[in-house]
């Protein structure tokens, strides 16, 4: 076998004298995909970017050698590296929405590498870009380049970024968490495209690739080899098959045996609901006849018993978070009502009483922005204690200590500014702040989405414990179907703001579903390396028509002449309620 295409040995990247990654060594044969896997802060992106001679935040390659093809990377001048970047080594960033320049047309950005390196004329580059758009299954490949980034969807942008990377036929492509920001359904499409494109790159010879990810299941679909990083060090590296099936390192074993949440004990559906939502419609803009200009939620209804847990799932944009904001009063509903202990909650914040505020607590998705960066943990927790309970001084200090203990936070974080906490700790503080109110209803909005798998699982376990111990009714908003199906008594599936399915846990974990729920479930990657190739390709035809089934344009089971003509009926039975022409048990129109 010929010499490896990429050879990294003894790589150390440091900021000042503090190493970010140290002593990393690996090789990748030409045409193969190496996955770098690890949690955030493990140094996987740092390692990948070092291959381009690029260090973030004032870092530098302190030690080690990097060879890509015949090229020496370390110690090269910026000019020399610029000649390599985008030409021989290309990069696909995590968030295409942020990595595309918002004020320039897509085509100009896609062909820019070819123009910078003067390997094609503008016309040639544009022609090639259109070819790539086509190969990446982008809609209207001839004209999509004329749009601005905000005019195309996230999944399309991610594919457009692949086109940008591949336009110069690079010998190495670095993919940095390219699907992390995407919905599972979109992720499937993008992964399929990437896989095909990488194989076809370099005139069919295939490109060597570094695939950075925290998701082992995704990596299983893409990688030939897997390298596992932990706290800046390489703990295991080997062929994908071996790492996935017979991990040697203890940490890898934890990753592979992904900690699925332990199913919680269901709570009986007895007793008057503590929270009820009836015919809720909400959105933005002027409200005309109870319908806002930009409706986000339509006709949502559910009941939540004391101590119960309701899961709400759906893709981004489905209105999950809006629902939480409406219940919390941040966005007044246009129609319908929210009942707390049987009495209506005023839609507007200004009209709610302190006790109503106290009873319903919202835990925000992103603890980074939900916690005031100017404050210490003590101040953040003391504020609701004073606000709701009038606690100050020693009494408040005692309660703060209790809350820290309750959320399994070490007592010494109390005087730290929140900016100095880890992601998991921040989310616990976020949770503790809500608990300080001693609420009856906890609205958890994607509380784990910004966290690493292991940390997220711990947070979920904590919430589950609290729910049991404190008898909190909990609304779980999440895109993590595994977690929701394990923890919640009931699951509400939203599509485009419309509830398409409401199922008990048993029913949700059963085989029969609304087609959209099926799509969501089948889009979850598994460790099976063949999974990607066997999933169904996505469907998209026409546009959503007001009044008809919202999912119809993407539904694989839609019946022409029925689904695109007659509004879907609401059906009920077997612990489920769903909005579809299909009966869940049979695949024929009822």
């Amino acid at each position, binding site marked *: 076998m010929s010499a490896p295409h990429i050879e990294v040995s003894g790589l150390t990247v440091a900021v000042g004298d503090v190493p970010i990654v140290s002593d990393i060594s690996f090789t990748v044969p030409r045409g193969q995909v190496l996955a770098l896997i690890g949690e955030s802060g493990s140094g996987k992106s740092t390692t990948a970017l070092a291959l*381009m001679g*690029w260090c*973030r935040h004032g870092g530098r390659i302190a030690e080690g050698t990097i060879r890509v093809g015949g090229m020496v990377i370390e110690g090269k001048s910026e*000019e020399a590296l*610029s*000649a*390599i*970047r*985008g*030409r021989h080594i*290309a*990069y696909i*960033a995590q*968030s295409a929405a*942020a*990595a*595309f*320049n*918002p*004020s*320039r047309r897509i085509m100009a950005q896609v062909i*820019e*590498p070819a123009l*910078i*390196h003067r390997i094609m004329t503008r016309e040639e580059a544009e022609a090639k870009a259109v070819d790539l758009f086509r190969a990446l299954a982008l809609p209207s490949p001839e004209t999509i380049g*004329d*749009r*601005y980034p*905000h*005019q195309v969807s996230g999944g399309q942008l991610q594919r457009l970024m692949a086109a*940008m990377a591949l336009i110069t036929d690079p010998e190495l492509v670095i993919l940095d968490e390219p699907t992390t920001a995407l919905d599972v359904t979109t992720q499937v499409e993008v992964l399929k495209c990437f896989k095909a494109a990488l194989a076809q790159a370099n005139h069919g010879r295939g490109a060597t690739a570094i695939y950075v990810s925290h998701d082992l299941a995704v990596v299983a679909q893409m990688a030939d080899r897997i390298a596992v990083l932990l706290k800046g060090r390489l703990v295991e590296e080997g062929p994908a098959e071996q790492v996935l099936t017979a991990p040697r390192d203890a940490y890898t074993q934890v990753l592979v045996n992904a900690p699925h949440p332990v199913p919680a004990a269901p709570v009986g559906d007895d007793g008057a609901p503590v929270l009820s939502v009836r015919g809720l419609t909400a959105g933005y803009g002027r409200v005309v006849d109870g319908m806002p200009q930009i409706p986000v939620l339509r006709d949502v209804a559910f009941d939540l018993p004391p101590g119960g847990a309701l899961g709400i799932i759906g893709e981004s944009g489905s209105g999950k978070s809006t629902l939480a904001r409406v219940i919390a009063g941040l966005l007044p509903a246009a129609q319908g009502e929210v009942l707390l202990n049987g009495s209506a909650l005023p839609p507007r914040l200004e009209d709610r009483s302190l006790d109503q505020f106290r009873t319903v607590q919202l835990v925000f998705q992103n603890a980074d922005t939900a916690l005031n960066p100017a404050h210490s943990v003590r101040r953040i927790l003391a504020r609701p204690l004073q606000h709701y309970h009038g606690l100050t001084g020693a009494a408040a200090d005692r309660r703060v200590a209790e809350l820290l203990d309750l959320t399994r936070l070490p007592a010494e974080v109390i005087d730290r500014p929140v900016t100095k906490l880890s992601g998991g700790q921040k989310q616990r503080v976020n949770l503790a702040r809500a608990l300080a109110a001693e609420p009856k209803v906890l609205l958890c909005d994607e509380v784990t989405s910004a966290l690493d798998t292991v940390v997220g699982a711990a947070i979920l376990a904590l919430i589950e414990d609290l729910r049991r111990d404190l008898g909190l009714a909990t609304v779980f908003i999440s895109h993590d179907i595994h977690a929701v199906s394990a923890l919640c008594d009931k699951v509400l599936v939203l599509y485009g703001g419309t509830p398409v399915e409401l199922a008990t846990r048993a029913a949700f974990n059963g085989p029969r579903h609304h087609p959209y729920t099926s799509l969501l479930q089948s889009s979850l990657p598994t460790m099976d390396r063949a999974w990607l190739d066997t999933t169904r390709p996505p469907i998209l035809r026409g546009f959503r028509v007001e009044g008809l089934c919202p999912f119809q344009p993407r539904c694989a089971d839609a019946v022409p002449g029925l689904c695109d003509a007659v509004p879907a009926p609401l059906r009920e039975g077997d612990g489920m309620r769903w909005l579809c022409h299909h009966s869940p048990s049979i695949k024929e129109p009822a």
Partner: protein
Amino acid sequence: MSGAKTGKASLWPMLIRRVGSALLTLLLVSMVIFAIAGLLPGDAAQEALGQSATPEQVAALRHEMGLDQPAPVRYAHWLSGMVRGDAGQSLVAGMPVGAIIAERLPNTLMLAGMTAVLAVPLALVMGITAAIRRGTWIDRAINLASLSMVALPEFLVATVGVLIFSVKLMWLPSIAMVSAEASWSDTLRSCALPILSLTVVVVAQMARMTRAAIADQLDRPYVEMARLKGASLSRVVLGHVLPNCLGPIVNAMALSLSYLMGGAIIVETIFNFPGLASLMVNAVTSRDMPLLQACAMIFCSAYLLLMLVADMVALLANPRLRAQ
């Protein structure tokens, strides 16, 4: 594309809203001016007659000027004239205010315009260079230089300029003599020092804002992405960053340039430049209310117009806003 169409459609309501709030602002300005000018001791009649006047003379002139009417009546009178597009008659010069303004407005516009032509590119070059060379000695040197420029009193800058270029080298005139007959090159030569002085006054602030706006964008992922395409930092700044921070830059420039209209009083004084700022000072000292109001209206309109232009540029530079 539909974006362009909807963009146009949303431009009009915005413009109408802006014109509405501009009118409100103008009304507020005229009220404030009228109110604080009312605090001034004496009036136009007294100022015109000077120390020697007898009370009877003052009373007669006051009646002649209509100053014996109560203040609200005078304000209402002025306002109704203004609505009809009549700025009134100067109490002191006995000429229509419009004619006096017409004499000076072109001068001020010329001075402000020429200063902008010089200062804006200079500020952009300074700001962009500093941003590209962020953290290097060039950046620090530009930072220090611009701070020092901000820190020097403008009369000192102007006087030093006169001493060097007029008195010592005799290259440029020490006073600005503008007249309709003078050729463009003469006018330019005559105004060179005022323009240079004003440039020093405004360029530093604009350069600093430019640098800040660019530096703010440099940590964005799209900048890293462009760098990883192999683009040099200068290409990234010019091609990628600049279009994205055009809004704040143009805004900062508009703010600085609005200073050139009414704030140029010191430069106008030193160079004996017949501009609007000294006219307004004159209107204050002679208690010439219609003239004072007219100057205030012009400065306010100029400010509002510049802000509107800045917002329009920001809107047009941002495809996301443009399409809304």
